[in-house]
């Protein structure tokens, strides 16, 4: 039972519900207000409503690059977790981001592409944009560890 097969059989609504639940379970993602876009209902587009406190450069003004990265990481983590059959939260192993333009003081959107979901590692691509989905603000790639590991509470208790 590979996770890749799970991905194929998951109903879009179940995926959406699991993504929402995952975002709610991450306090910092909740603090920023990261959510799922209501439309289109059959896809998972992430949404970060603009707020003055996420500004990194008040002169331009521009959203902090760290917030853009955080938003994309949360999207990748939630998208990956939604595909997992086991209740093991994915862990970010590495994250690499290219900033393509500065992010103005408006909402951010993101969409993930699961490049590969293996038994232990998932490779996820994330695109982030603002008003126009063709004009990307940033492009990122994340690797997630998706198997149980020593830092999981459940695994710790077993030792």
């Amino acid at each position, binding site marked *: 039972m590979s996770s890749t097969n799970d991905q194929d059989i998951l109903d879009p609504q179940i995926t959406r519900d699991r993504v929402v639940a995952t975002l709610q379970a991450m306090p*910092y993602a909740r603090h920023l207000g990261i959510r799922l876009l209501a439309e289109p209902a059959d896809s998972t587009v992430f949404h970060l409503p603009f707020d003055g406190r*996420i500004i990194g450069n008040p002169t331009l003004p521009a*959203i902090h690059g760290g917030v853009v990265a955080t938003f994309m990481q949360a999207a990748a983590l939630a998208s990956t977790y939604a595909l997992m059959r086991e209740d093991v939260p994915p862990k970010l192993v590495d994250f690499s981001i290219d900033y393509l333009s500065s992010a103005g003081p408006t909402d951010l959107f993101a969409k993930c592409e699961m490049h590969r979901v293996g038994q232990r590692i998932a490779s996820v691509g994330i695109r982030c944009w603002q008003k126009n989905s063709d004009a990307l603000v940033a492009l990122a790639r994340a690797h997630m560890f998706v198997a149980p590991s020593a830092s999981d509470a459940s695994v710790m208790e077993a030792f």
Partner: protein
Amino acid sequence: MTARSQMEISIEDLSRLFAQHVPHGQDIGMQMDAPSADGRTRMHIPPQPFLSGDASANFFFPGVLFSMADAACGMAVFRALGRYVPIATIDMRIDHLAPATMDADLVALAECYRMTQSIAFVRCELLCGPQLKVVSIAVGTFMLQSRSAKKPDINRQDTRQQ
């Protein structure tokens, strides 16, 4: 490099710059420290439950580490330049060696290890826990905006400006 260290932007100026002008830094509690003994730019974030990535608030959310790495690297560029210029992150990569526990301040140590006329190369270590263990390493590049590169009078001793 005596000339450069004499021109170096003061840590007080940087702290003021940072504290007054970056709402996101204020939101997550990022603070500038005096440089480390080996001269690296140092910042820290005290743990707060809303900065966690797990419901039981044991670990910092990885994005918090990224924000501080980005900010500390930017500050390291200003210190290496000896002045404030508009800069933009081109790219950054972070490796998470271990989860960042919330039992002590999260610390960033950043340095600009190479500077050209338009590009700054930076790296940053993130440390946490009472033992200040290295949990993440970030590497990135910044673009120095052309507007500032056209002002040779500000930094005349730097021949690359001519």
